């Protein structure tokens, strides 16, 4: 692991410097995580009086439990949908901006600020827009014959949360794509133009391949966002409904553990989620290390 070639010689000082972070890390991260793992192997009785060791039974139950499988399915739709929508739109806006000679800064400033909005707030705003009684969008949709109601129709609810969750992520992806586009040397684009490639061909044969590290990186980041940071969106809008159709994994952990007080199952779900994060993080670090340096 890298250090400076010369270091200070103090023996105790480094420990003192590290103490605050390590203390908080151990008390609030590592210890609870260990607890979660432990709890996932235990089950409380109905009155919460005693706990027994049940090994992998909680995990086995998860795989049988229809609501969990439903959550898996819902998340498997939700996360990729959010990723595709926000990464796709981010790319479209970044490429459009890159094309312009003037006005770039203004457009960028106007597209970047949504990142500052909390997912919960974004959720409420779109919830308001889609409100079946007074929302503007259902009104417009009714004009073309579609009756929108996200409290009753599962597809509508999913669309609502996907849009609300993607809305602010577009800015983030837009920013990173812009940085990636600016990293492509201008002379390469000029060479491609002189080589007879028009704008569309240049995008598909030169720009997009060179953007692939950024695209991959953003795909992983967005998946993690969609799986974890979107809790507020669900909680503030649909609450997992109707009929569990928007009950993503991370929301279910909260409901089962905090509200349902089913500690063993919630802990097992947490551990599964942890494993998914670890897998995604490992993929991200491995791939980012391999990021091709041109």
């Amino acid at each position, binding site marked *: 692991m890298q250090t400076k070639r010369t270091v200070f010689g103090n023996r105790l000082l480094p420990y003192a410097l590290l103490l605050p972070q390590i203390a908080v890390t151990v008390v609030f991260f590592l210890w609870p995580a260990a607890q979660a793992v432990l709890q996932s192997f235990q089950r409380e009785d109905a009155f919460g009086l005693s706990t027994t060791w049940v090994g992998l039974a909680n995990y086995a139950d998860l795989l049988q439990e229809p609501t969990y499988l439903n959550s898996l399915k819902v998340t498997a739709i939700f996360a990729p949908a959010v990723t595709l929508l926000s990464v796709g739109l981010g790319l479209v806006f970044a490429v459009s901006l890159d094309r312009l000679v003037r006005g770039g800064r203004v457009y960028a400033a106007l597209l970047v600020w949504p990142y500052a909005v909390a997912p919960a707030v974004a959720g409420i705003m779109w919830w308001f827009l889609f409100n079946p009684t007074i929302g503007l969008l259902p009104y417009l949709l009714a004009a073309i014959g579609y009756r929108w109601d996200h409290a009753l129709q599962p597809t509508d609810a999913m669309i609502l949360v996907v849009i609300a969750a993607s809305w602010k992520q577009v800015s983030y992806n837009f920013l990173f794509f812009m940085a990636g586009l600016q990293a492509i040397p201008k002379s390469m684009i000029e060479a491609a133009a*002189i080589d007879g490639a028009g704008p569309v061909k240049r995008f598909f044969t030169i720009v997009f391949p060179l953007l692939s590290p950024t695209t991959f990186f953003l795909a992983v980041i967005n998946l993690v966002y969609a799986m974890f940071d979107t809790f507020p969106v669900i909680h503030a809008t649909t609450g997992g409904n109707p009929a569990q159709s928007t009950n993503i994994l991370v929301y279910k952990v909260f409901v089962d553990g905090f509200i349902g007080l089913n500690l063993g199952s919630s802990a097992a779900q947490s551990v599964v989620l942890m494993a998914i994060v670890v897998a995604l993080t490992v993929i991200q670090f491995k791939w980012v290390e391999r990021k091709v340096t041109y």
Partner: protein
Amino acid sequence: MSAIEIAAVSKVYAGGVRAVSDVSLSIADGEFIVLVGPSGCGKSTLLRMIAGLETITSGTVSIGSRVVNEVDPAARNIAMVFQNYALYPHMSVYDNLAYGLRNRGVPKADIDTRVAEAARMLEIEPFLQRKPKQLSGGQRQRVAMGRAIVRKPDAFLFDEPLSNLDAKLRVSMRGEIRQLQRRLGVTSVYVTHDQLEAMTLADRIVVLNGGRIEQVGRPLDVYHCPASTFVASFIGSPAMNLADAEVTGGAVAIGGQTIASGMAGIEDGRLTVGLRAEDIHPAASGTGVPFSVRYVEELGAQRLVHGSVEGRHLTMALLPDLPLSDEMRVLVAADRLHFFESGSGRRLSR
């Protein structure tokens, strides 16, 4: 036909910056023209206007007999070699070479032949399947040139292609570029800030300064007959010695010391006199003018003696084994003096 005609071309940026002012130049078919000058003189801007990468504010550029001001770079049938090579890093060398041909719909068999031919000429056949990042600087530069050659364009445009190479490589690549151009006979416009590259490569040199042409001519003509003090001090190494001088009745004096007399055709008054380092020679005592030696640079094949006449700094280029002393006397051949107007620096003809 691939002569290039540049007629009264100017480039003015928003905000009023004049990068190129009223430049006119006729480049013959097959000629190797070098645009040379210090940073900011407009040489790259001019090249990019020929390429179509910069818009032309006024004037016309014609390639062949076609005015190309409004023509896209891709349609001008030119090829460009960039300073940082601009190779496509995600494609193999073969694909880099083939890219331009594929975009123009050249049949695959033809692409194969042309790429093989260019690879052979540039000795990059072993690298065809490699990616650019696996190649050295010199090899990348050759691939960049290969990309230009396969297109069989009307003109080659070079934008300081050797600047990123180390000194030794620069010298050998210089020679290769020259031979290649002679062999292919394609009109070439080459931009550099290195006067040595300009001297060795060009059929004709174009010296640019502040967006304007200072002089156009064959390298040796420009060397021996610089049109201004700027050209005189830019071309040639060591730089030409320039000093204020007084002419009275045909006698040229620096700081009161007469260095030459009996000059015809020069009016009395103050002017700038130019002497090349190799035109100053040691003189026997009693002849010439006094010269105080400050320091000596040994180059091996040559010796540069830096000193002064009456406080004006002059550099002499001598053979290494000639005897030196702190105080010497030096002579200048009268017919080797150059005269320039004091204010404008323009050459005065005799």
